[in-house]
């Protein structure tokens, strides 16, 4: 089950769409649910499905299609670094390597203490600010030099 607060936020999203198109709010509902629960378990997906009057499989389809939804529990902080070509030309790939080395993990792995998960991301639409990374999907960090990566990791409690 989700908290009352999350359901309230979902209600606000529902207001954006025609009354007979509740399914349109499913992406926002999954985002809100993931914010609360950190990831989307089968139970969470079912809660969203019930609330929107959708079959759970239809909600799962959406959750598995868009790559910012987490279907497995990530570490406390999910760091996604863009390594696509425009970013790579300005150090995106180097920043990814540096993070791997600092955290002692590869892409798609989580540190043993459960603090950090490292992901390789696709274009975030911020290529002019490379190297770019996201913290837990919603916070974008731009122009990340090695010094700034160090600072970020300290801030996040490494």
């Amino acid at each position: 089950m989700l908290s009352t607060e999350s359901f309230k936020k979902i209600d606000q999203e529902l207001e954006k769409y025609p009354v007979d198109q509740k399914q349109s709010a499913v992406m926002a509902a999954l985002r809100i649910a993931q914010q609360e629960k950190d990831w989307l378990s089968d139970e969470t997906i079912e809660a969203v499905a019930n609330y929107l009057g959708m079959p759970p499989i239809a909600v799962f389809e959406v959750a598995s299609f868009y790559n910012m939804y987490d279907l497995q529990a990530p570490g406390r902080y999910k760091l996604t670094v863009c390594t696509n070509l425009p970013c790579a030309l300005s150090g995106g790939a180097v920043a990814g390597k540096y993070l791997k080395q600092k955290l002692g993990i590869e892409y798609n792995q989580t540190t043993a203490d459960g603090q950090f998960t490292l992901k390789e991301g696709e274009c975030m639409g911020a290529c002019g600010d490379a190297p770019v990374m996201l913290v837990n999907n919603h916070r974008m960090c731009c122009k990340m030099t090695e010094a700034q990566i160090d600072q970020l990791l300290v801030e996040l409690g490494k």
Partner: protein
Amino acid sequence: MSDKAYLLTGLNGDKTWGLADYIKRGGYEALKKILREQITPDAIIAELKKSALRGRGGAGFPTGLKWSFMPRQFPGAKYVCCNSDEGEPGTFKDRDLLRFNPHIVIEGMIIAGYAMGCERGYNYIHGEIFEIYERFEAALAEAREAGLLGKNILGSNFSFELFAHHGYGAYICGEETALLESIEGKKGQPRFKPPFPASYGLYGKPTTINNTETFASVPYIILNGGEAFLNLGKPNNGGTKLFSVSGHVERPGNYEVPLGTPFPELLEMAGGVRGGRKLKAVIPGGSSAPVLPASIIMDSTLDYDCIAKAGSMLGSGAVIVMDESTCMVKALERLSFFYHEESCGQCTPCREGTGWLYRVIHRIEHGQGRQEDIDLLDSVSENIMGRTICALGDAAAMPVKSFIKHFRDEFQYHIDNKRCLVPLELQREGSKIYVG
């Protein structure tokens, strides 16, 4: 920034995005003019046609013509949608527009709603820029509060509601019908066309989808006339355009210049090639556009027609600059990985073909290329192109074909010598972390 700039003019970073500042810059005057003078939808569309405004998202389709496709006497809902799902590698202009000038997009969409008889609109915002989505929501709230959105706008009998829809990480949703599927709460898989969105769009209703920058260009045209807009650029290429310059330049960023500006001028605005190195190649319109070698791009002007003649596309105006430190095989490998990753899986040639392309380029890059691989890449690309529902297949194939066309020697060198033509040290030097 050019003195003709109107999209980003008078902006001061994060400080002046709000309604009060937008109004100070002359904002919402175009909307007020339409309502005050009761300008007809037909007159607006005629003005757009005169302006030669072409879609800023990539295809460059004439906007006035697109708007004229919407049925006039349709009983029931019609929709206008903004495509801010900016995920084409190299493109980051809509993010700055929404961040620094969100109301210009809102005003453009309201005018679009008026011109096409729509009472509701959605702006689909790229998943990875959540903070900008929140800003756009804040701008919408300001506009509602001021009576610029909602019922009976500014006391007129025109009503229009506008909402933001936040994506969650799928490049394919930048394709307009995938975007509609996504708003409907489904997987973003493109639809067959026809029927086109103007007859069967969102929720099966007539819908027009334009790019963020396209909508942002509309208020200027209403206030100054189509001809003034046309004169900013060159014939058949009206207006200024935002160019997102990334890669090996001293000052990556967005630059607004008149269409028809010579490429070397833009390169200079961005500080020139980084470290004084030699320009090698440029992808002029986002990663899906064919790459052009330095000799061709340096002789080109930045407009739809000239770049098409040079063998590429102006696309979204995303200019990816690569200097002599770039290994073209490695560059293509990364792009091919992207298309494989982002293929929605609906059409076999794209789903299987993009993976095949990536695997072959990967093995060439890693010293396991076979003599027949270059022709194989060409043939796989040929067999993807034109055989898929949407343009992602072509978008994956075009870089491959163009990289091979212009840099075949470098691919051959990799296969023959099992290593890069460009020394690794130079590659590292060119693409280390750079914050200009």
